[in-house]
Each structure stands twice: as C-alpha cells, then as structure tokens.
C-alpha cells in the first residue's frame, strides 16, 4: 500500500477539537423511550407517505412510510409497538417549526419483523440492489440526508475515477463516525465493497483526519486482513476537511465546478455511516432504524456516543447521559459550527442527527453583537470555497441578489469559518443563508409566475378560439339566411334594424343591390326587345304577357333603385330620393309578388328534377300568370304612388280591375283590327276579311266605349271636385278624335274601294256604296260627338249629368253602330246568296233596328245640344 499524496484546500480554520470528552465512555445503548417520534421528512426531497394508521401494531423494521416520488425515502418502525398518533410535532429544524410525524408507542418487546437480506448482492442486478437499498430507507448520514439510491444511480451514469469514503469528521465535538469506525470497522469495509460494486470506481479511498488514530488503526487492520485495495488516506486536521468538495480537493486535487456534482468529474463520496447502513441492510436485511450519535458538551454528566433509535426524543437522551439542564445554555443539534439550536427538547433524533451538544454558556457563548466590517480580509483567508465573503456580505446587506449570485454565493457551503474568524462578530453565514433563501424564493416565484402566465395565456387563447368559432358559425348562419330568396326582403329591414352596423356589411348589401339592379335592367331591355318583336309579329297574347312582364321588371327596378340610395346614402347621394312609403295595398301587392315568385321557383325546381311532369308544367304556367298579374298590380300601384307624391294636386284615380280589363280589351281589339286591315290592304277584294274588319271595328268601339265609361266614372268617384274631371274628359276627347280619324280613314278607304269597283264594273258596287255610306255616317256621328265634346260647358249644369248624357249618347252610338254592322253583315251575306229569304227577313229586321237606334241617338244628341 503506497502512501497517497495529500493535497490542500484553500482556507480552513483550526477550532478547539473537543473530541476527547465523548470518547471516554464506550458506546452507549439508551433504553426505549416512552414514544418514538418519526418525522416523515427526514431527508432532502419529498416527505414520505405514511403506510400505517393510528392504532396499528407495528413490528421492528416494518415499513411505516414509503417514498413519495423520485427524491424521497422509506421509513421504518425502530421498534415494535403501536402507532399512537400521526400529527404535527416539533422537529429538529432550525426554524423550530412542527411537521407531520408518526408517533409510535413501543411495547417493549422489540420484536423484529422477518428480515429479508440480500446476501447474493453480487449476483443481482445493480438496479435491484439500488431498489433494495431504497426500500431499506438508506439516506446519506453525513448531514444533508440525500437518498443514497438516487446518489448512486446518478453516479452510475458516469465513469468514476474515485470512490471517496468520508471519514474526516472535521467538526469539533463530534465523534460519532470515529466511534462507528472503531466499533464496526469490518462492517464499514464490507459496506464499502458493496458501494464499490455499485459505483465501479477505479480507486477507492477513505479520507480520515489524523485526530482519529484508533479508528485509523482499526481500519488499517481490517484492510490488511481482507487484502483490500481500499486506500486509507490520513489528512491533517483542519476544519472543514470533511466537506465533500474539500475532501475531494484534499485527496485528488480536483475541484468540483460551480453548479456541478462530484459525479460530473468522476468522483463519488459516501459517508461511513451510510456504508455501514448499506452493509447491514444487505447482509441482515435491517432497515435504517438507528444511528450513532454523539452526546457531548459540558452540560452532560456522561458525554458519550450512543447507538440510538431514530425517533428518540432529545430529552430522553439528555436524561440518559445525565445532562445538567440548569447549566445548559443551549442544546445544539449538530456541531458547534454548523449545528442549530433546538427550540424544543421533545424534537426527535433523525437519520442525519450526528450530535447533541448540550453547551454551557462558557462553552458556547452568545454571539457578540455585530459590528461594522473593518475589511480585515480574514474571512477571505478562512473561506474553504475560495469565495469573497466580504463582497458577498455587501451584496447580501443591500439585497443585490444578482451580484451575489455572480460572486458564486451558491458555492458557499455554510461552514461558518468566516464567521468564526471575523473580528467584528458579523454573522456572515446567516447573511448568506438568508440571501440564498431569498434568491431561491425569487426563483420559485418566477417559476410560479411563469406557470401562471402560461396558464393565463392558454386560457385566453382558448377563450378567443371559442369566440372565433362562435363568430364563424354565426357568419355561416347569416350567409345561409342571406342566400334564401326571402332575404331580399329581409335585407332592408336588417339595414334599418342595425344602422350603426359596420360599413362593410352595408357596402356588401349595396353591392348586391347594384348587381340585382343591373340584372333587372338587362332583363327589362330583353323584355322590351321581345315586346317589340311581338308587336312586329302582332302576336296578341304574347304582347299582353310581355307587357305585363315589362311592367313587373320596371317595378322591380324602381324598387331596387329606391332601396339602393337608402342603403348607400354616402355612395350615391344624387340618388338619395326619399323612398316612397308603400301604401298598404302596394305592400300587399308586393307580398303577393314575393309569394308567387317563391311558389314559382319551387315549382321550377321540382320541374327541373322531373321535366316530364305535365301537372307541374300546368302549375308552373298558372303560377307564372299569377305572378305576372301580381307584379302588374304592384307595378301599377308603385308608379301611381310615386306620381301622387310628385304632384299631389293632380291625384290620379285608382284604376279598378274592370277599368284595366277594358283597356286591355281596347288594346287587343285595336291590334286585331290593325291586323285585319293590313291583310285587307294586301287583298282588298276579300269580302271575308272586310267583314272581319267591320266586326273588329265594332268590338273595338265597344271596348272603347266601355273604357270611356270607366274613365268617365273614375274621376267622379275619385274626385268630386269639378275641375278634376278635366284630364279625364281630355282623354275621352282624345279617344273620340282618334275614333273619328279612324272612321274618316275607313270612309276614305271605302270610297276608294267603291270608285275602284265602279271602274271595273264589279257587282259588289252596291255593297261598297252601302259601306261607304255607313262609314260616312259613322264618321259624321263621331265628328258630331267630337264637336260636342270639344265645347265643354264651362259654367253649365253639374258636370256629372253632362257626362251621363254623353255616355248615354255614346252607348246609343255604339248600339247604332252595332245594328249597322249587323245590317252590313246581312247585306253581305245576302249579296252572296240573293235567294235566301230568311236572310232578307233578318236584314229587314236589322235595318229596322238600326233605324230605331239611330233615331234614339239623334234624340239624345238633340237633348244634349239643347242644354
């Protein structure tokens, strides 16, 4: 065995060792206390989860709490007994706070549960071995209580050069490890072998201070006996050589970088107590239920080391070692450098409690009051971590946390060397501890606030997504509604409902209307063209139908034009004429139109699906007609309204249906007549055509008479005012004039035909001359009527009576004309069949009738003239 090189670390102090007192007596074994108090959090990390309930009987070594997460540990009953209570009890903690503990009342039997050792540990997998150690509740027993399986697991990931067993025990007063090494040197070496099996390091070293010659000798003996390759390295006594990083520096001259673990540089450290616990667990299946603890200080009558069950209250140990509480200034758990004062003597021994120091006032005086830093620099000389304690103090005092961190505050091992040497009695370590805690709190708060922010933002995003989805659905619905034909009507109401709505939808509405308007206009043009063509071809039915359609289209366009400026007043201010309020009737008509068009569309759709359905076709045509009618009515009502708005003084009478019918009849009759006349022009000799012509003329006259009647009526009913009849009269007069002109033309034509016939000596000369006579008579009659009409009596008797008379005359005229026509017809027939007697009779009857009618007419005319 070659002597290993021992290096040095910066700083360090040499306080009085005070280790001899507790080594005078052999290892003690205190009796069972009245109760064992087992805190659930005896280690770093998550507190264990209790497995037992109050009142449960437990055996020695039985698991009473299991690990609660990765960084946690098991807990076992140190003796057999009953679970008395699980509650908060004061624990060994610098804060003096209480924590949850399982309290066991021992039954005194100290009965072990059946133990299951793992003797073939070299054969089982390392993972299983680690799990086994975890189940035995083994944690680092040097100070922090880091769960051993976690530490070993972490170290296994690295290629280790050194396994260092920490046996330095540098803190004054404490001799627990010394005693352990004396008592259990073989167990320690066997335990180290198990750890080495797990760690598989190139070199195994035991670092021990030279103030433990007995332990060194004992270990050397065992190592020699076992021919182990474990190196026992004796280091000079200097506080804090037992610090993990300091010991590594001493043995390997390597420094653990800031923020790294020893495993990162290939080194694993284990405490001697941990190694012994590992051996006992593996060899005997014993969980960690007891430990070596030093009872020392001037307050104890019999200072000694004891093997004590975990959970034993400090007060029990004080009485066991004859503590003189009247002399004791304070009870410290741990050493004088790194320990903390216990507030409560009922606090229990835990897995990391290596010393109970019952110090008198003289031994451990109260700290001197803090004075100002004199910048002597002794703290820097003492610091084993090569920090700048003075700088850190400034930063701690001014709460400059960032700067303190920058000066590697977290490399401070809180050994207390700086405070120990400080001539101004500044509690430097307390400043650092406080600052460290403040920084940790700030970090935790930052993490928490980050999480809160994330959650808040996630929630916001979720809510926004929900709102967007709703909005999209709403828009979709709106779109669907707009696509329906009824939306045409709904659109303006929507606009009036939401006038403050954003301009975009309004613009859209306007655009749509504009498009519709353009379409309607194009349609109207097309219809106009068709109408013209029809007029040229003289297709009667088509013309009327087309006329109605044109009217409907015009009405539509007007409506749209009215709507358009209403919806887009800014866009088209010129068109912004006030919309004509629709009268009830007009509205009704509009509704009818809409209904009819909807029905029609439906039918058309059905028809598209089933084009051969005759019934549907019938329906379609019927609906088309209905629609046309409705549209026509609406169209009629609409312009009327507009004009009535424009010149309210000359309110036009509302046309009745009959009136309209009469007009249509007139138009039809005149068209037919024209056609016949045209044909006649081509074939002037065709008697049939001539007869037809006369017939149509008669029909026209009848229709005109009917129309005149209506037109005469209308003003009377509509406007009782005398003046208002003037326009109506004018129209009648105009008609009369036209009739006269027609009659005159007919006369001329007849005369011409007669002349022609006379020239060629045709046999129908007589008929023609008769016709000429007739035409002349008619023309004269009309002229008479015209002259009568042209002289409106300005201040005569009530106009209504005059009108009545005129109407009678007109009717009479018509009757006369009819009679004449019949006579003509009969005469014609007679000319073709001169022998037919019945025809002659008829003719005579008709002539008589004609004469009668003419007489009546003359009578009426005379009576009118007399007025």
């Amino acid at each position, binding site marked *: 065995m070659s002597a290993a090189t021992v290096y040095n670390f910066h700083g360090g102090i040499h306080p009085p060792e005070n280790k001899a007192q507790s080594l005078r007596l052999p290892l003690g074994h205190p009796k069972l206390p009245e109760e064992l108090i087992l805190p659930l959090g005896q280690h770093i990390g998550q507190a264990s989860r209790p497995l037992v309930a109050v009142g449960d009987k437990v055996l020695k070594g039985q698991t009473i709490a299991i690990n609660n997460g990765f960084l946690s540990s098991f807990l076992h009953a140190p003796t057999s007994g009953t679970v008395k209570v699980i509650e908060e009890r004061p624990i060994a903690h610098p804060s003096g706070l209480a924590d949850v503990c399982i309290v066991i009342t021992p039954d005194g039997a100290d009965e072990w549960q059946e133990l299951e050792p793992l003797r073939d540990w070299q054969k089982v997998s390392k993972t299983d071995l680690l799990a086994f150690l975890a189940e035995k509740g083994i944690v680092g027993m040097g100070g922090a209580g880091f769960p051993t399986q976690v530490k070993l697991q972490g170290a296994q990931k690295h290629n280790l050069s050194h396994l260092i067993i920490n046996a330095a025990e540098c803190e004054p007063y404490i001799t627990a490890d010394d005693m352990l090494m004396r008592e259990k040197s073989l167990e320690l070496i066997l335990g180290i072998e198990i750890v080495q099996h797990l760690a598989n390091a190139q070199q195994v070293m035991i670092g021990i201070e030279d103030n433990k010659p007995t332990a060194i000798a004992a270990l050397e003996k065992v190592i020699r006996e076992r021919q182990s390759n474990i190196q026992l390295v004796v280091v000079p006594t200097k506080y804090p050589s037992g610090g993990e990083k300091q010991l590594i520096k001493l043995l390997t001259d390597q420094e653990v970088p800031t923020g790294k673990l020893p495993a990162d540089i290939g080194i694993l450290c284990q405490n001697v107590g941990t190694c012994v616990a590992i051996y006992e667990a593996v060899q005997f299946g014993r969980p960690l239920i007891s430990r070596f603890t030093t009872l020392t200080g001037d307050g104890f009558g019999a200072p000694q080391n004891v093997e004590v069950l975990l959970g034993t209250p400090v007060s029990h140990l004080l009485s066991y070692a004859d503590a003189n509480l009247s002399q004791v200034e304070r009870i410290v758990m741990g050493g004088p450098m790194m320990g903390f004062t216990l507030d409560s003597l009922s606090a229990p021994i835990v897995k990391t409690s290596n010393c109970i120091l019952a110090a008198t006032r003289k031994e451990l005086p109260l700290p001197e009051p803090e004075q100002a830093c004199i910048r002597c620099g002794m703290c820097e000389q003492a610091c084993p971590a090569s920090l700048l304690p003075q700088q850190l103090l400034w930063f701690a005092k001014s709460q400059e946390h960032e700067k303190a961190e920058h000066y590697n505050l977290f490399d401070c091992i809180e050994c207390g060397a700086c405070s120990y040497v400080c001539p101004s009695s500044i509690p430097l370590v307390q400043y650092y501890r*406080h600052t460290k*805690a403040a920084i940790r709190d700030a970090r935790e708060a930052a993490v928490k606030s980050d999480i*809160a*922010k994330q*959650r808040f933002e996630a929630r916001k995003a979720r809510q926004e997504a929900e709102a967007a989805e709703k909005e999209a659905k709403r828009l979709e619905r709106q779109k669907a509604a707009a696509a329906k034909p009824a939306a045409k009507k709904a659109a303006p109401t929507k606009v009036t409902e939401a006038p403050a709505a954003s301009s975009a939808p309004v613009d859209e509405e306007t655009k749509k209307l504009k498009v519709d308007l353009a379409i309607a206009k194009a349609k109207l043009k097309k219809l106009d063209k068709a109408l013209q063509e029809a007029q040229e071809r003289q297709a009667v039915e088509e013309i009327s139908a087309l006329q109605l359609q044109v009217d409907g289209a015009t009405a539509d366009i007007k409506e749209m034009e009215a709507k358009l400026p209403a919806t887009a007043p800014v866009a088209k201010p010129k068109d912004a004429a006030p919309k004509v309020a629709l009268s009830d009737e007009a509205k009704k008509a509009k509704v009818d139109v809409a209904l009819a068009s909807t029905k029609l569309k439906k039918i058309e759709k059905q028809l598209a699906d089933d084009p051969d359905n005759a019934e549907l076709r019938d329906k379609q045509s019927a609906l088309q007609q209905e629609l046309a009618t409705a549209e026509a009515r609406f169209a009629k009502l609409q312009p009327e309204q507009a004009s009535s708005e424009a010149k309210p003084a000359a309110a036009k009478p509302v046309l009745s249906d009959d009136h309209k019918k009469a007009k249509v009849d007139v138009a039809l009759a005149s068209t037919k007549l024209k056609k016949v006349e045209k044909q006649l022009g081509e074939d002037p000799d065709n008697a049939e055509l001539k007869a037809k012509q006369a017939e149509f003329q008669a029909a026209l006259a009848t229709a005109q008479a009917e129309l005149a009647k209506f037109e005469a009526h209308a003003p009377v009913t509509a406007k009782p005012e005398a003046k208002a009849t003037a326009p109506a009269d004018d129209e009648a007069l105009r008609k009369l004039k036209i009739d006269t002109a027609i009659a005159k033309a007919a006369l001329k034509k007849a005369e011409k035909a007669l002349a022609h016939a006379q020239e060629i000596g045709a046999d129908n000369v007589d008929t023609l001359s008769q016709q000429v006579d007739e035409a002349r008579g008619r023309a004269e009659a009309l002229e008479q009527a015209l002259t009568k009409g042209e002289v409106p009596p300005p201040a005569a008797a009530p106009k209504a009576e005059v009108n009545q008379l005129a109407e009678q005359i007109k009717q009479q005229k018509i009757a006369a004309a009819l009679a004449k026509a019949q006579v003509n017809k009969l005469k014609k027939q007679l000319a073709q069949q001169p022998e037919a007697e019945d025809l002659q009779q008829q003719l005579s009857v008709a002539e008589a009738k004609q004469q009668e009618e003419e007489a009546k007419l003359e009578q009426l005319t005379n009576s009118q003239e007399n007025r």
Partner: protein
Amino acid sequence: MLTVLSAVAILVVLALIFGAILGYANVRFHVEGDPIVDQIDALLPQTQCGQCGHPGCRPYAEAISNGDAINKCPPGGQATVQALADLLDVEAIPLDGGEAEEPKKKVAVIREDECIGCTKCIQACPVDAILGAAKQMHTVIADECTGCDLCVEPCPVSCIDMVEVGVTTRTWSWEKPNGVATQSLDIIATDRQTEVNA
C-alpha cells in the same frame, strides 16, 4: 487636390462599409416586440388579478411602458414597485392604497360541502386553477392558485376563503440578521461601566 479627393473617397468607402455593417447588424440582431414590456411583465407577479385596473399583468406592463403609474400592483407589493423603479429609472413611489406591510401569500380554498356547483368561480379564475363541473363540487388546485381573489366575489354562497399560506419547514428561510446596532454596544473598555462576568 488629389489628397482631398482621396480623403473623400476613403471616407465614402468607410461610410459604406460601416453602413453595411450596421444594416447587417440591424437584420441579424433584430429584436422582436417591445423588450421593455417583456422586462416589466417579468417583474410583475403574474397573479392576473386585475387589481391594477388592467385585464392581466401584461396589459399593465404595456400600460406602464406607456406611462402608467408603477405603484398599482398590490400583490407585488413595495418590492415590485422598487424593482420597476429600478428598471425604468424612475423614483419609487409608495404603493397605491398605502398598504405598508408586505402582501401575504394566499390561496383560495373552497369549503367543499357548501359548494353548489355553479361554475362561476371556474369562469372567474384567470389561471384555470379551479376544478369542477356544473352541479358538481369544485376545488382549487392550491399549487396553481395565484391568490388573486377573483373567485371570491362571484361565489353565490360565499364558500371561498382566502387562506394565508403558512410557513412550513420546507418554505422556511433564515431571517436576515439585525445588522450593526445603532446605539453603543458597550464593547470598548471605556464604554463599559460595569464588568460583566462572561
């Protein structure tokens, strides 16, 4: 003349080179968003409580960057005001409302047997820290609760309490030492009137 021209040419070339460097740097090291808002937001406690009058911490951060007062965050306390003052290089002003003591950390706790399952507190919670469904009991995830108070008011049966989070052995931290005493410490011999047997 040549020297003048060459000097001008050199300067122009230099200007072009530096311009190119600056242009590249502008693109390469382009900073997205408003960094000051992010910095302010990082100092705020993120309780999202709305006590500042803004709907969340970030809106308040934006308001501060636009000149709002820095003392409107009661959950952050005077420490936050100080941090904001340091960041923005303005004078630290007392917290709005004159709350002198530091805010105590609280969490909402629902008295579960009184809860009627109305979900109102769930909707009010800005960090989704309340669990529950309609007509089912609700409960607060204490770890996620920011203690913002916003769930207390909507509760129709007033079954939500704001409970102060106590110090445990795991959250406890060492107190700051008192520091150098201001009055005489009676350390120097001439200060001492009577000898104390230590």
